[in-house]
């Protein structure tokens, strides 16, 4: 290819390529037809594949997810767009009760992908900035992926569409047009595998999604002080790549978890307990987490800026940890 594309383009390309490759791949969502979706992630697909493959849906998230499950039971591979991932709450019943349990309770997996613009830092307010990943990571039967790079945006979408289980694909709207990269043709990122985005030996920062970008920026700052930080990009939240976490912690002996999700019940707690169970004896310092507080995402700029951790806070916490 050799053409530079954005994170958003990468998702669009993955949809194009998978729909071309496999006639059973369908799209369902609101405004995804001629309009191309609220963020234009589905642009060009209606024109290319028509109304038998790109199915416009009314404002009825449980209805849409249920319809997708039914399509999947008939051998199709539907990809459902939530206009903003916040609205996934309106489809919660079908996702956690019907789709997630499907394989376990009667042996038939619901081969669906649920995707949508996720996260904040865009002045979207509490109903257009939400991070609902742990609601679903906590519902056995759903895989949860959250690409933090252009390459993984494409590779994880392809893997999600090819995966027989329900996959929640979280695409960060702050990254949509911010990240650019040049990709090979058929990029597939394995689900369940973390990636060492930056190698280091002084401490490990574990993160995912938009905060990968912030953590890599923080690592550059830390490098100026000679603190060589390893950054692990989880990429998949469930199933969690415990081996990658253990490998990095065993190497650096210090670990910090940084995420955009709120503190209580965020994946940092789960990772900390994993380290506690798997490699407690490797630790030379406390397991540290940097997260927003347990509040809804506020709207006004000074409030939103106070809510989210930033590079400065990540660096400060890392310096403190490095001193152990």
């Amino acid at each position, binding site marked *: 290819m050799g053409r530079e594309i954005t994170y958003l383009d990468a998702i669009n390309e993955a949809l194009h390529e998978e729909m071309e490759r496999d006639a059973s791949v369908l799209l369902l969502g609101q405004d995804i037809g001629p309009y191309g979706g609220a963020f234009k992630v589905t642009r060009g697909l209606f024109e290319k594949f028509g109304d038998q493959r790109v199915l416009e849906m009314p404002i009825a998230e449980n209805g849409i997810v249920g319809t997708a499950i*039914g399509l999947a039971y008939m051998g199709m591979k539907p990809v459902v767009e939530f206009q903003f991932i916040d609205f996934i709450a309106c489809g919660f*019943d079908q996702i956690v009760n019907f789709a997630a349990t499907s394989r376990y309770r009667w042996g038939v*997996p619901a081969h669906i992908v649920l995707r949508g613009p996720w996260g904040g830092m865009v002045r979207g307010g509490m109903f257009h900035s939400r991070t609902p990943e742990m609601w679903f990571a906590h519902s056995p039967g759903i895989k949860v992926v959250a690409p933090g790079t252009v390459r993984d945006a494409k590779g994880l979408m392809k893997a999600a569409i090819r995966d027989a289980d329900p996959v929640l694909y979280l695409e960060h709207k702050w990254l949509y047009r911010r990240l650019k990269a040049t990709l090979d043709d058929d990029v597939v990122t394995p689900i369940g595998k973390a990636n060492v985005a930056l190698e280091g030996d002084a401490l490990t920062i574990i993160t995912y999604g938009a905060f990968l970008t912030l953590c890599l920026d923080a690592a550059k700052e830390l490098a100026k002080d000679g603190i060589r930080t390893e950054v692990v990009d989880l990429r998949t939240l469930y199933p969690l790549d415990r081996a990658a976490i253990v490998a990095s912690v065993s190497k650096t002996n210090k670990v910090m978890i940084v995420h955009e999700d709120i503190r209580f019940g965020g994946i940092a707690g789960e990772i900390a307990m994993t380290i506690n169970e798997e490699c407690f004896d490797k630790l030379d310092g406390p397991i540290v987490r940097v997260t927003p507080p347990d509040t809804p995402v506020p709207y006004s700029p000074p409030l939103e800026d106070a809510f989210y951790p930033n590079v400065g806070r990540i660096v400060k916490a890392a310096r403190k940890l490095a001193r152990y």
Partner: protein
Amino acid sequence: MARKTQPAGDASSISPELKREMYRYLRLQRAVEERAEKLYKGGHIHGGNFSGRGQEAISVGTALALEPKDKIAPMIRNLGAVLVRGYSPKDVFSSFLAKATSPNGGKDNSTHFGEVQNRGVIACISMLGTLVPVMTGMALAAKLKKQPIVTLTYVGDGTTSTGEFHEGLNIAALYQVPFILIIENNQFAYSTPVARQTPVKDLATKAAAYGIPYAIGDGNDVFEVYRLTKKYVDEARAGGGPRVIEFKTLRMRGHAQHDPADYVPRELVAEWEKKDPIDRCEKALLAEGLMTEKHRDDIIARINTQVSEAEQFAINAPFPDPKETVRGVFADDSIVPYTPWEER
């Protein structure tokens, strides 16, 4: 436009052989559920157990109106439909008794089992209304693939108040998919009578909001259930879009077996006892000379033997291996959800 359609034909349009088959399935559902009541009281059934007593005509009549390639999602009171689709009393008792021989291996209870390809049965869950969009989606797939398949599921009176009932019907009507929704109005959602759930008297009229043709029928007359359903199934298969039928009936037992249902007026139960669907079918078959009393007694005896054998089979069957607990969450069985720390 939405309309209340007229019943097509009369009972004479149903072949004698099919009428006798209806009778056998009605009897089989009744016998299995009566035996399940005994098993429940004997402590063999873990958790809840639900009865479709008095509603058998709806399950049997609708299921027999479908073709084998059609897809059906029975709810917990639709045991008759499960049996029509080829599941045996052994399967049913194995599921009720949580045994390894259950179609879902003991992972879930009640009639929460199914198999898509051969039986065309979709497993239900406890959240009411979820199957309305799911069966809409299956019908949409049939339409997109140009396969002459019809899908059907059931809701009770209570479910007509859920969001998913309305969301699913709206999508079904929008895409004009071959989907039949049966509203089994058994007059009670657990303890709450219809009048305290919704101000709508004839629940099928809710379909009018989406321009879906609907009908209302006697749920205790298996021939009427069959005829109304068959007519709508044929129309849906021919490309007519979704259809809704409300069958009026009464739940003759509690919500589940623990529930004595004191809240149901005795006079109401006595009134519906007289409309028992099996008695009515039996009388019609005897009166029409399609079945002799001896023939009836043979049917009942055969069913009782079958049910007793199935009951013993399930009682003697093994429970699932505890190792199964962590298997099957994902299609990829290499994903093991949890290994206890003390066992590493």
